[in-house]
């Protein structure tokens, strides 16, 4: 049971729930840049939230189904054309979609956002390292999809109500709004331990100025271009653990937000961190996009994240129940 990769897309990787627990060996957690959209794609096909699925960046792959399967697309609105025999149609997103063997799914560009997630019922049976299928390019663990790859997955049973066109999807879908919203809004930042080492105008600039996402941003880190930030004096720092969302300030003055494939330790000043509740929003920004920040207290950031995790868990459970009992 396979999906055949005809074109790999710009950067398509297998991601699951990541591999936390190995940072003491310098091995980071990796995992989906936009965790909620990854989890919801899985829930829509009845998978566990942390099942292996495809993370698609900016330009999608072309895949041929070698068997019947149920798929779901979430995240950035990506063009998704399906060809099966004489039929041509757009694959709807945010809902499970049954496609017949032989269907050709051509994923293209994104109208907005930067990352889409494609899950397959049963989960991708992908190569696994240290208990996780998550590719971590920066760490040298796995690789991006390439033309000719075959992705293993399970055969899906034929759903009731299959129409004459040999395709099926339910009339309902998840409302994407809470999980993907391209409208610009400030991201929330918690001040870091070296925030006070910024000079006064840089402290103001972090929250008042506009930054642009640099073109060299990737799964390791997002570089923010703007008026460079300055410290009042150089800090002599030694390497300390860092995490997803840490905002570091290298000497050149352009802040870097650490993303999923970040090194486990870092020695630059930690001026701030992006509130985890807003990291999926950041992960959907494209190079060149404008970014602004507003300050939030650590406790408030924690409460927002707990609320988001609960909402996500409840929604995923409800969707999964609906899909698996249908």
């Amino acid at each position, binding site marked *: 049971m396979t999906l055949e990769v005809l074109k790999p897309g710009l950067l398509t990787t297998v991601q699951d729930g990541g591999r*936390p*627990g*190995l*940072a*003491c*060996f*310098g*091995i980071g957690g990796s995992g989906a840049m936009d965790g909620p959209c990854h989890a919801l794609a899985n829930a829509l096909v009845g998978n566990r939230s942390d099942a292996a699925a495809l993370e698609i960046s900016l330009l999608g792959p072309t895949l041929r189904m070698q068997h019947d399967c149920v798929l779901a697309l979430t995240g950035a609105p990506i063009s998704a054309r399906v060809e099966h025999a004489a039929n041509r149609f757009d694959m709807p997103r945010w809902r499970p979609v049954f496609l017949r063997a032989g269907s050709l799914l051509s994923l293209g560009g994104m109208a907005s956002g930067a990352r889409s997630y494609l899950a397959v019922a049963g989960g991708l049976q992908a190569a696994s*390292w*240290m208990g996780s299928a998550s590719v971590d390019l*920066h*760490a*040298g*663990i*796995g690789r991006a999809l390439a033309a000719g790859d075959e992705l293993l997955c399970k055969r899906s049973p034929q759903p009731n109500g299959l129409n004459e066109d040999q395709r099926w999807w339910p009339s309902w879908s998840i409302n994407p709004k809470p999980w993907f919203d391209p409208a610009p809004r400030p991201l929330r930042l*918690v001040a870091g*331990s070296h925030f006070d080492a910024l000079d006064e105008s840089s402290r103001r600039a972090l929250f008042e100025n506009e930054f642009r996402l640099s073109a060299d941003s990737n799964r390791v880190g997002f570089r923010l271009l703007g008026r460079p930030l300055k410290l009042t004096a150089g800090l002599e720092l*030694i*390497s*300390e*653990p*860092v*995490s*997803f*969302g*840490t905002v570091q300030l290298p000497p050149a003055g352009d802040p870097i937000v650490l993303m999923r494939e970040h*090194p*486990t*330790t870092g020695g630059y000043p*930690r001026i701030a*961190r992006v*509130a*985890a509740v807003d990291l999926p929003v950041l992960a959907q920004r494209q190079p060149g996009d404008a970014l602004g920040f507003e300050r939030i207290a*650590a*406790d408030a*950031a*924690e*409460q927002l*994240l*707990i609320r988001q*995790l609960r909402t996500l868990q409840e929604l995923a459970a409800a969707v999964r129940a609906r899909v698996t009992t249908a």
Partner: protein
Amino acid sequence: MELSEYQFEALNESMLLIRVGSTIEAACNARVHALARRIEAAGLPGLIELVPAYASLGLRYDLVHWSGQGSSAFDAIVRALQAALCTSQEDSAPTAAHTRLIEIPVRYGGAQGMDLESVAVSCGMSPDAVIGCHSGALYSVAMLGFAPGFPYLIGLDPRLQLARRADPRQSVAAGSVAIGGAQTGIYPRVLPGGWHLIGTTPLRLFEPDARPPCLLAPGDQVRFRPIGEAEFNAMAGSPR
């Protein structure tokens, strides 16, 4: 060490940092590893991982487990850690059973140890004396970071302590043994680097498919053993 000497800092909503000091010193790093052992021994629930660094310890926890206790999860786990550390004894030195001694064969100099001559000049020694000095010391893995399996080793002879290269290299070969400041390290794979390259090891420090994937672990002790071309070539072809 008194409890008040630990500083707690939230790194994000599910990771905190316990700072023990601010310098790269063996004694301070030993306290970090001792602290990690005490926290492990305390068996706190909802603890995902400990990440030792030179002078600080990262601690990743399960946010949901530690929330809903009448305060932020960060405050709740800091309180629990303080209580656990109050009641446990500081073990200053690890027992022999805790510590592994790993020998790393190194072919010094040559194409992958291209800075050996310049290091010798900077240190006012002969290349052989540099080799003797580097392979004569006992090192400990202060931390791993930068890339999977990259060990930051402390214990470098002060005579070999040099500032980093003014122009870092874009690409340092896998297996390269390097010195920089008070540290020595080994590149697990091709990486950029600003340290001085003095040799190369045939051992693989990180193999994603191997068990365990990393040759070295935090707190391990390491010795370097000089080897010649023939032994290097014989080992380079064989698995770990």
